[in-house]
């Protein structure tokens, strides 16, 4: 039955992806929120610590990475919350297709909406913070490897807390500690690049973390959603 050409797993994956992107674009007001949050948090620092290039240059990688992390954190709620509240999440769990694949499509949609835009704006914010131009490429690569990890890990926490009325704080407590390795290796790589040192090792670690979460998170998220909907 399910091997009809229009109903393969790829087709369902693309349908879920398309649906989530359509939903996001119909909420145009909310679409830009994570990006604006990212920009505003980063631009607060020059105002707070003063415009001295020497200080900003040293803290720039850390600031950009922490802001990316908080922005990802803030946007996690949109991944499953509205689907949970209107019963669509239940319908998705009752599909005969593997829930982990459907969930992966939702996570990918979440990253395309909230993570991908950061890659384009981050170099501009780097300029704002006097980040040396040699480090720009590394900044974008680390964000490209790191932000999907944030979406993947965040999805597990979101799946677990979606059934709670006020799960926001609990979600942060669950997920932020798991974000720490990404923050350390991401910010460190950019720092080293700014100092002109090789960064391959850090990028490999981030790549490995991405593969690890990519393979495990959909399964864990699927299980956590089943717990939350039951």
């Amino acid at each position, binding site marked *: 039955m399910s091997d009809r050409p229009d109903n393969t797993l790829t087709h369902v994956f693309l*349908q*879920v992806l398309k649906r989530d992107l359509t939903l996001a674009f119909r909420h145009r007001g909310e679409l830009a929120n994570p990006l604006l949050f990212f920009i505003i948090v980063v631009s607060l620092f020059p105002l707070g610590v003063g415009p001295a290039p020497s200080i900003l240059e040293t803290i720039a990688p850390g600031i950009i990475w922490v802001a990316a992390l908080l922005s990802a954190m803030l946007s996690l709620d949109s991944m499953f919350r509205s689907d949970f509240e*209107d019963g*669509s999440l239940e319908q998705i*769990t*009752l599909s005969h*297709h593997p829930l982990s694949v459907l969930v992966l499509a939702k996570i990918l949609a979440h990253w395309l909406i909230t993570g991908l835009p950061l890659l384009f704006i981050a170099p501009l914010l780097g300029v704002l913070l006097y980040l040396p131009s040699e480090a720009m490429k590394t900044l974008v690569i680390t964000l490209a490897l790191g932000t999907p990890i944030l979406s993947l890990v965040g999805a597990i926490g979101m799946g677990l807390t979606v059934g709670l009325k006020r799960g926001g704080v609990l979600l942060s407590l669950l997920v932020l500690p798991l974000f720490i390795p990404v923050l350390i290796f991401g910010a460190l790589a950019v720092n080293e690049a700014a100092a002109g040192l090789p960064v391959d090792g850090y990028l490999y670690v981030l790549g490995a973390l991405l593969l690890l979460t990519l393979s495990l998170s959909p399964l864990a998220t699927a299980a956590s959603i089943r717990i939350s909907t039951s």
Partner: protein
Amino acid sequence: MGKDTLQSNNRPTVGLVTVDLECIRGNRLLFSHLNLEIGAGKILQIEGRNGCGKTSLLRLLCGIMLPSEGQILWRGTDINEDRAEFYAESAYLGHHNGTKGELSALENLQFAQALSTPKEGSDLYEILARLSLAGFEDIPCRHLSAGQNRRVALARLLATDATIWVLDEPFTALDRKGIAEIETIFEEHVTQGGTIILTTHHPLKVNEPYYRSLNLEEFACNSNRGDQ
């Protein structure tokens, strides 16, 4: 009560069978030792006062919740062991419609079809027209009334090829005419060999041979009912 819904014969390969089902919600035992068998071409209405576990039973029967004790067998296999097999043939409609307000009725149905298997030769416009939604196909569901949203959710049943329908209060927000239309659809479904398990406080008008009812209160924790 000697109702024949409770027959406990030895044909576990037919239809949906529950074996010694028990349900605990929030430290409260709702029902236990529930043995029922429902074959193809039947409507089973689950009755009982508020809070006796009707919704919980439906959620158990469609696999959203896990039973604290006992099993639910579909053609002889536990539905929670071979999920894909059972989910491919079942549809669930709960208190929430499961439709997205931002999507139109048509888009909602297309997504429902993607999640399960589209019914052979089904035309979504025809299905929506049948549920009095002609002309509302492309309007975002949040602009539709509660009754119309319920109709979109019910249209999902016709758009996919599920044979077991598990419906929790399907008539909520529907008008009289709508209820009559849905009853006709129910009868059609069971005459084609489908199975419907539902709860409703509305007196169902369906032909006697298809209809069964089950009073869940008989299985409440203190009633000591031997099964075999």
